[in-house]
């Protein structure tokens, strides 16, 4: 079946069954490999994209459910002011180890900062706990979010 979806501001017509998760449409139909597969059950956050600005898990979002809503992916997030700042903070603080989860982390972090420009540690915990980092780069993810928010980056949860 044929569907037209809006991805990073561009209308794209794709041929796929309506129950195909958006993740696989992005990756294997549109050849946009930035959004990652980790679990298939919305448990790890690797596949996080924005749907009308809200973070969703593309691995459990069927193509047929998207309709006219705007999809933003890691390939397009740098075009937004917050997304650009988050990417820059990620590079400045050298967050990555293997890097596989980081597209999803950046998408969740951008959504958080769009909602709460000055997040607390608790806000960060709440917004980011759906995104697993197997390398456990959480120390730097936390600091990079604060850097993108122009907050002091030092971890001060404990003395």
């Amino acid at each position, binding site marked *: 079946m044929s569907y037209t979806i809006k991805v990073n501001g561009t209308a794209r017509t794709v041929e796929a069954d309506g129950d195909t998760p958006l993740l696989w449409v992005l990756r294997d139909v549109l050849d946009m*490999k930035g*959004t990652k597969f980790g679990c*298939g059950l919305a448990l790890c956050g690797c596949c996080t994209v924005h749907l009308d600005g809200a973070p969703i898990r593309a691995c459990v979002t069927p193509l047929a459910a998207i309709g006219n809503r705007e999809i933003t992916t890691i390939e397009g997030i*740098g075009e937004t002011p917050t997304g650009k700042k988050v990417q820059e903070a990620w*590079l400045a603080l050298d967050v990555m*180890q*293997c*890097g596989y989860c980081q597209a999803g982390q950046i998408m969740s972090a951008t959504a958080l900062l769009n909602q709460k420009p000055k997040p607390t540690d608790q806000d960060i915990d709440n917004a980011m*706990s759906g995104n697993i980092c197997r390398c456990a*780069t959480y120390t730097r993810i936390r600091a990079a979010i604060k850097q993108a928010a122009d907050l002091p980056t030092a971890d001060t949860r404990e003395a």
Partner: protein
Amino acid sequence: MSAEQIRDDGAGVSRRSFLAASTVAGGGLLLDLSFPTVAPAVAPAAHPAAAGGTINAYIRISPDDTVTIICKNPEIGQGIKTSFPQIIAEELDADWKNVRTEMAVIDQAKYGAQFAGGSFSIPMNYDPLRRAGAAGRQMLMTAAAKTWGVPVSECSTTASVVHHQKSGRSLKYGELATKAAAVAPPDLKTVALKDPKDFRIIGQPIGGVDSPLIVTGKPIFGIDTTVPGMRYAVFEKCPVHGGKFVSANLDEVKKMPGVRDAFVVNAPDAGEGPYVGMQMGLLDGVAVVADSWWQANKAAEKLQIKWDKGPHADHSTAGYARQAEELSKKDPVKIVRSDGDHKKAFAEAPLKVEANYHYPDLSHAALEPMNCTADVRDGKVEIWAPTQNPGAGRGMVAKVLGIPPEAVTIHVTRCGGGFGRRLASDFVIQSVLISKQAGAPVKLLYDRRQDLQHDMYRPAGYHHFSAGVDKDGKLVTLRDHLVTYGIGDKFNDSATFSPNEYPARLIPNIELAMSSMPFAQPTGPMRAPGSNGLAYAFQGFLDEVAFAAKQDPIDFNLSILGEPRVITVPPGPFGPMPPYDTGRFRGVIEAVREKSGWQKAGLHALARQGTPGKTPSGPRTGMGFACYYCHLGYFAEVVKATVDAQGSVRVDKIWVVADVGSPIVNPSGALNQVQGGVLDGTGQALGLAVNIAGGQVTNTNFHEFPLLRMSQAGQVEVHFLPTNFPPTGLGEPALPPVIAALANAVFAATGKRVRKLPINPADLKTA
């Protein structure tokens, strides 16, 4: 991981490189440079040599001054694709701004062993790569000297420029590259190296070279591979090791939308016993090949496969625990070490402590599921693989297909996590066999269930300890009877027990003994293999002994270590080993005591002897200590943890002091490895265990294998002691002690010992 698993590349070349290992002054590992790792070489096939010059196997310089540095080992998140080029660029005296990094193709004749494991990359390659870079610099200076008709000794370099001070002339590396490529390479043993005080690239916190591609979503991981005409495969493997395929509804599945084929792939003859080697995990399975992965996956869900589950079909986690209990009462099958007379010393000891410690089977759960793209045609195979062990994988593929290793081309992609899982080549071999039968290039991708259920698991351990302390409070004897997986006296891969396990070599009486029971699944190395469980068991038990002896655990460990001295270590699998240095060990322990405010905080058990957990009904906070030496790194760690009334454990803060020599090649990457390593360890302790029933793994996804999340990640403070020893690796050694430090912190908080992992809140609750 055994050396054999890495050495065997099918051509036998890497074996020589390992056997040629020799020591350098001051200890450390150095490959014999007579091995042609930096001989002049053609550029990797994927990048035909442009104008300019190929200086050696690691360095290519273009006329526009771009310096391309080849990284010989896989990048799995340990940062090697950044730190290796830093080492080469430093001695080449390149301008880092113009350095590009490229992964090497797999050719162990040219590069020596190519793998990422054992935290070996830095200790094995630091010196050879410096010499490769220095050789390049020497060749560029020789080319400039010839051009100018001056002696080489009058030439010098600054960032990518050769100078002749006397005449004020200079030439850029790009201008010299073609000429330099024709210069005979200098003797690597005597090539001049920089004085470390002049380093300007080594020691800099340079960001990961692939990071700009990662934050913008570029296709650089194995799973991102696309080749023309590629199809997608799902492979449903026999769930129990030793099982066989019987029948399946293949005709029905073949009719599903998008499906091109469905067929049985029988396990190739591994050619070794079932419990050794990296061919573990090769099992019968059914492949479904389709036009998209999603279609292949949907079709595979309709598979009804009948398996003969073989001899392990009644195995279970509970069954292993029962067997371990029974075996602990019998004589061990293997004595790993026996010094003095434990039996006598224990009988005579005025203070006796006995306890059992257990850690479970674990899955690696790299976030990028196992995958590989293969194209088998015309007696050759091309492979795109996120693998840690391409050198060995190449040999195995050649063997399975019956073709020479030269007919196997492996492109190593970035790996979305390794943790040891990608040292096994099962998924590479499967993709090759599926491509061969499908007659098309195929990308094989596991889903999360398959990834969790078809791993080479970290083997569980059941430890049975006894220890004796003399009247002066000194540990005089210790015995451990470890029950783990194996058959008879042959133990599973990574079910290790080193005869040098701490406190061996430091106390007069010790017996380290083992018993085995067969396991229904393959096992393999996981980040800090052996150590990741042993450190928890030993450092947890020694904390108990210290407490029973009314001694501070830090003082107790310092007393075990004794005066600073070096203890000679016999050669390891990769050649001579540096000595074991109790002074370095003491150094990190004393430093973590100070940095963590250990005594001042008064949150460790001894400070509250008799009354641990002073507020039984509310949150209870404690501090725990542990120390460990592995992968050539000395680590001491303190954890502060709080346990609430429901028994839920929160890691408040982790202090780490490390001695991994100097220089630290990339301080940013190094710190990241330690921060992540200790958080990884706390995640294991807080929630991870693989469960087995009916011989198969029952965990299906992350709700049943709950990896650490942001809200559980404690604060981490890291200090590196800048000692004057050769630099060593950091992928692994930070992890093992943190698990014991956390367990000991829980004891300090609650008065309850954590003798079984993962930590069970039900054991700790007061409400």
